[in-house]
């Protein structure tokens, strides 16, 4: 039996301790031991459908949960049935006759919805493959990271959801296998998963980033590239203001040459202290991609600088001693950053997956971001830091770069994106300072979006403005995937209703 109930009705708290579901009845979807993945999916789809019918009969909303990683309350719903998918985490190799003609089966892997990004990376590496981008952490389920548009970090790629080639979604009306119009998997394979084939570019673009509102995602087909090595360089450097213009123009090679290696970097990150961002040294991290070599000396994740998301320490101190914030943040940056390897150190190498980390939150986390057009960076970055610091923001400010991501509701919707993160200890003052940043961007007429999984205080009106026609296309796709309004309401929650996604 793939779905089991976990204990009695009670409270559930998310991974980062930022949200709580009250009076939630918890269920777990578990992997079985079927020989073939398609048989697993057929059984799971059947069970999930029955579970949805039971929830509807009980008059409860439902909420599928992966690792519960999102610090925003996007996965929070009280008085509902929660479906934990973490133990539905098998991955399967795809054979040539499972796919449509012309599709490269070797680049694909079938992934159950509860598999972590870390697990997907491991399984791909075992096949000589790799993800081409991902977020800072690897403790999210792949399906959950994609569902919230987790931004990538490779300068030439988009978001994690760009890896998805097909999705199995279960609603009370049945299981649907959503693919692009050109198709990916064979008709026989899809039928064996107990799903109805839906080959439609518009529906697929919506389903790549469902924000938990399009049904229960039970499986994904994930695309990959041949595995590669990355060489990290990280250091503390005082960054010149002019260098921001280089980043704004996409001159990453020039930036890299000034602060690390004279090579095209594949990943560039700058973490600054918003209190005097160009006077105090910034934490810089570069990754340089190289072809895979089996004989390469491998570094540990720590040596690779795994876990490059910003600091989540020193919350109480920063709140209690506002006059010392700038100094304390700089001290934390110095202490918290894994030392090196800098340019002069012996090079270390690892796979993309080894450079990620399942961090454990050490303090109440504040986690917010804005994604802007990279061209606006030089103009607004210093203003953002100034406003944030002036209003008492107590986190570092992190800058990363990526290309436009797939999915109608992808926050990275500009051709070239600069993602500015505010990650660190939670305090009301920091949340207020972030709100002032948002106000300043609006006042300056700068277009920007916010991350679905972070505490960004979005509402329905704002979502509609930010995503415009894409939002209307997403709603139309939702209504096609779940035509019955009663079924759509099954996936509602106060948070999703507030974002205009389920009402």
């Amino acid at each position: 039996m793939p779905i089991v109930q976990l204990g009695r009705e009670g409270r559930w708290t998310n991974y980062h301790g930022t949200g709580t579901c009250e009076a939630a009845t918890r269920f777990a979807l578990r992997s079985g031991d079927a020989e073939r993945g398609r048989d697993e999916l057929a059984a799971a789809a059947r069970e999930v459908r029955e579970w949805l019918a039971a929830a509807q009969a009980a008059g409860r909303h439902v909420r599928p949960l992966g690792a519960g990683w999102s610090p925003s309350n996007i996965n929070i719903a009280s008085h509902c049935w929660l479906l934990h998918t973490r133990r539905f985490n098998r991955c399967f190799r795809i054979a040539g006759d499972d796919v449509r003609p012309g599709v490269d089966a070797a680049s694909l892997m079938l992934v159950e919805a509860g598999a972590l990004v870390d697990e997907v990376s491991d399984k791909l590496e075992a096949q000589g493959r790799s993800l081409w981008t991902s977020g800072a952490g690897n403790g999210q389920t792949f399906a959950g990271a994609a569902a919230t548009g987790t931004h990538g970090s490779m300068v030439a790629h988009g978001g994690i959801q760009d890896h998805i080639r097909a999705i199995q979604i279960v609603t009370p009306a049945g299981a649907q296998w959503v693919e692009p119009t050109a198709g990916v998997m064979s008709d026989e394979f899809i039928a064996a998963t107990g799903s109805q084939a839906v080959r439609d570019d518009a529906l697929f673009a919506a389903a790549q980033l469902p924000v938990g509102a399009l049904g229960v995602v039970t499986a994904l087909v994930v695309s990959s590239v041949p595995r590669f090595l990355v060489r990290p360089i990280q250091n503390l450097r005082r960054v010149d203001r002019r260098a921001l213009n280089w980043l704004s123009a996409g001159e990453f090679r020039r930036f890299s040459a000034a602060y690390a290696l004279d090579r095209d970097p594949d990943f560039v990150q700058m973490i600054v202290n918003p209190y005097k961002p160009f006077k105090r040294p910034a934490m810089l991290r570069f990754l340089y991609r190289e072809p895979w070599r089996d004989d390469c000396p491998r570094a540990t994740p720590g040596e690779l600088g795994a876990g490059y998301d910003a600091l989540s320490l020193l919350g109480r101190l920063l709140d209690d001693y506002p006059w010392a914030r700038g100094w304390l943040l700089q001290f934390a940056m110095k202490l918290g950053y894994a030392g090196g390897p800098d340019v002069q150190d012996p090079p270390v190498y690892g796979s993309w997956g080894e450079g990620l980390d399942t961090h454990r939150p050490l303090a109440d986390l504040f986690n917010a971001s804005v994604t802007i057009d990279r061209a606006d960076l030089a103009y607004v970055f210093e203003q953002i830091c100034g406003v944030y610091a002036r209003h008492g923001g107590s986190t570092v400010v992190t800058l990363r770069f990526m290309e436009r991501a797939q999915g109608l509701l992808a926050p990275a919707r500009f051709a070239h994106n600069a993602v500015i993160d505010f990650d660190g200890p939670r305090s009301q003052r920091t949340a207020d300072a972030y709100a002032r940043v948002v106000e300043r961007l609006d006042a300056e007429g700068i277009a920007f979006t916010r991350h679905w999984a972070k505490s960004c205080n979005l509402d329905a009106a704002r979502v509609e403005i930010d995503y415009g026609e894409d939002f209307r296309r997403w709603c139309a796709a939702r209504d096609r995937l779940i035509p019955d309004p009663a079924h759509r309401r099954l996936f509602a929650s106060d948070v999703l209703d507030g974002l205009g996604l389920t009402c």
Partner: protein
Amino acid sequence: MMMWMGWGLCALLLFALYGQYLTGQADIFVSIANPRPLDEERMVVTLKGWGFASAARLPFVTPEADHGLCDLRVFATRRQMLVAIATLGYLRPVTVAWRAHAGVQPLGVA
């Protein structure tokens, strides 16, 4: 002179007590490498009679631990430390938190 020494000793003891209060809230965290955690579970174990006996509010079971545990934390909350201090250590509540492992499944065929 004796009075000042007495006050000094009192201050020292107070500092020692405050130090115990703070350090008792320290988070002792043990994890396996490469964790694949499920949700965190917690229970409170109360040491009684200066550690001669202990009692947990929950039984020592976790519903989904058939793949073992990923990590374990032992810590006291502020309130638990205040209880320990107020009872002169007779009661010493401690929170034990753990996360079970989701399991590592072999790569299958689709």
